[in-house]
């Protein structure tokens, strides 16, 4: 079990400078922000070495509260900024936080290519099933049939499974957690961040204000209970019957493979180029 870090967590916040935050009561984003901090504490990363970047949306407001090097960039592009940061200074530890619309709709091209390249960074995709900040429009992860402000008759389109998508694109570590299962999330984040390669964690997080209200779950407690009741771990699932798994969402680590990392490959390439230059001189 992981220790309780409350007093330490506060040292990782810009609490004297930037609070109160913008998030609604009952929102899950603050909970996973705590998990990110605890994972960083557990890894013993120095605050000065950590870069957190984000795009646009409720989740992407997170960096301003965190006492690291923080970049709040444009909608969908956060991973491309992070790629520049990591490549220009590989000693930095780079974490990118994005919402589901940010990461998968407007940022869809960037996230699949970032996964393909396999640069040593961590992406956290906070999935609350809709665009919360702009008033609850549907996103690529809105479940079929769900109501949102732009699907008043129910979501018609199929949705993405973030973890399947990322595994297919080549991310070397892919996992899913929820803000209800906080200790588990702490451990998943730690594993993702220490992974050498591109790691992605999808976090299911309630948005009572936008998604909940539109789908008879305006009470944040109900939404948290759904996270408890509607999800099972990969391990639990192996012992369950097919019909009991119907409608359940899996939590845990889906992929953890070792593949040569981008910056290592680039260093090898530079070595080859230098050797060739010497030969020609």
């Amino acid at each position: 079990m992981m220790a309780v870090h409350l007093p330490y967590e506060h040292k990782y916040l810009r609490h004297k400078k930037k609070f109160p935050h913008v998030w609604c009561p009952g929102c899950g984003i603050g909970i996973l922000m705590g998990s990110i901090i605890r994972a960083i504490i557990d890894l013993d990363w120095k605050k000065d070495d950590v870069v957190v970047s984000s795009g646009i949306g409720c989740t992407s407001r997170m960096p301003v509260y965190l006492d690291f090097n923080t970049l709040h960039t444009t909608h969908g592009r956060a991973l491309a900024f992070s790629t520049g940061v990591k490549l220009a200074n590989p000693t930095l530890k780079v974490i990118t936080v994005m919402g589901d619309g940010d990461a998968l709709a407007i940022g869809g091209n960037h996230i699949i290519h970032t996964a393909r390249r396999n640069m040593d960074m961590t992406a956290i995709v906070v999935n609350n099933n809709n665009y919360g900040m702009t008033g609850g429009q549907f996103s690529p992860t809105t479940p079929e049939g769900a109501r949102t402000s732009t699907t008043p008759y129910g979501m018609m389109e199929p949705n993405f499974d973030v973890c399947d998508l990322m595994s297919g694109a080549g991310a070397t570590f892919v996992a899913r957690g929820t803000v209800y299962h906080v200790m588990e999330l702490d451990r998943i984040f730690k594993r993702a961040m220490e992974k050498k390669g591109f790691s992605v964690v999808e976090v299911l997080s309630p948005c009572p204000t936008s998604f909940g209200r539109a789908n008879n779950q305006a009470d944040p407690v109900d939404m948290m209970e759904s996270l408890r009741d509607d999800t099972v771990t990969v391990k639990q699932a192996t012992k369950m019957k097919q019909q009991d798994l119907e409608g359940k969402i899996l939590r845990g680590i889906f992929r953890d493979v070792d593949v040569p990392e981008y910056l290592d490959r680039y260093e090898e390439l530079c070595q080859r180029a230098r050797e060739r230059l010497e030969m020609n001189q």
Partner: protein
Amino acid sequence: MKTDPAGVLTGTHYFDGDWACGEGAMAAGCRFVAGYPITPSTEVVERISGRFPTMGGTFIQMEDELGSMAAVVGAAWTGTKCMTVTSGPGFSLMMENIGLGAMMETPCVVVNVQRGGPSTGLPTMTGQADIMQARWGSHGDYELISLSPQSPQEAFDLVIEAFNLSELYRVPVMFMMDECVGHMTEKVIIPPAEEIEIVQRKLSDKSPEEYLPYDFEGKEIPEIIRAGDGYRFHTTGLTHDKRGYPVMSAECQEFNVRHLVDKIRQNADDIVRYDEEQIDGADVVVIAYGITARVTRMAIDMAREKGVKVGFMRLIVVWPFPEKRIRELAGNVKGFVVPEINYGQVVLEVERCAAGKSTTVGVPHGGGGVHDPEVILEAIMGAAQ
């Protein structure tokens, strides 16, 4: 200060403008380039991708131009000199993060080897119709700097200047080549490293406790820092205060945007750069930039042979515009003639500054080629009447 010799290929070369621009960037100390292939600019990154690995530079080919510009702005916050390279269609996509670069006050260079547009236009043929987009192509209010080289030698020399200006004023600098200059091959002399003056990024020496990323008075440029040095800054595309933290108010917007505009407008006298010849006593002054400046010279010679007193002003820095100088000349000359490979962009600025005291005649060209000097001559003769 003098540049790092690692990036300087001292000697006399026979390069096209694209290669010369790439060599200039490396000589300026650029060590990060992100790009996406697009004609007629691709030779710049081809050159760089071959040379960077032996000098500690990093080139990445991104998934698109949105990502290229984003990677450049990100990399710049590690203290690295950065550049991206594109042409019209890619330039349009970059506008999003050029705006962010302006808002975050990020030094970097964006090369646009212009082709004919709009849309896909003429991929392999020349144009100068992105010059207004270079100024205000991203949404919102801001001012940037744009330069326009007329030859491969200048592509080398001026891109160094572009990096220097980006460091001094903390802005993305638009390096507006045109396809003709990019693909024209000429002699390019690269001087020894110790003769190349560069502006090194001046990192703040304030303590992290004292340091504020957007602290300035009037037209001052705020001091910059980089990730990893203990400052733990925040930077954002949102309207922000001195600390870089978002503040959603009209007052903060005024503080923020006014600075983005003032730091260029109020410093314009130091940034503006042009060549002049035979302006004194001229009846007509021709104003041109990039490849069009070279074609214009021929038309001017022809006009002088006919006895017309013609002066020539070549814009090297196009934005900020040499407003003051044009206002001085207005009233003293009969007319300004402005040939450019577009349907009238810089000419509008000339006309505004001439303020009705001299006539202003544009010589438009849709792109895909350069002007026929005879057409410029005709405009000069008309303006001299």
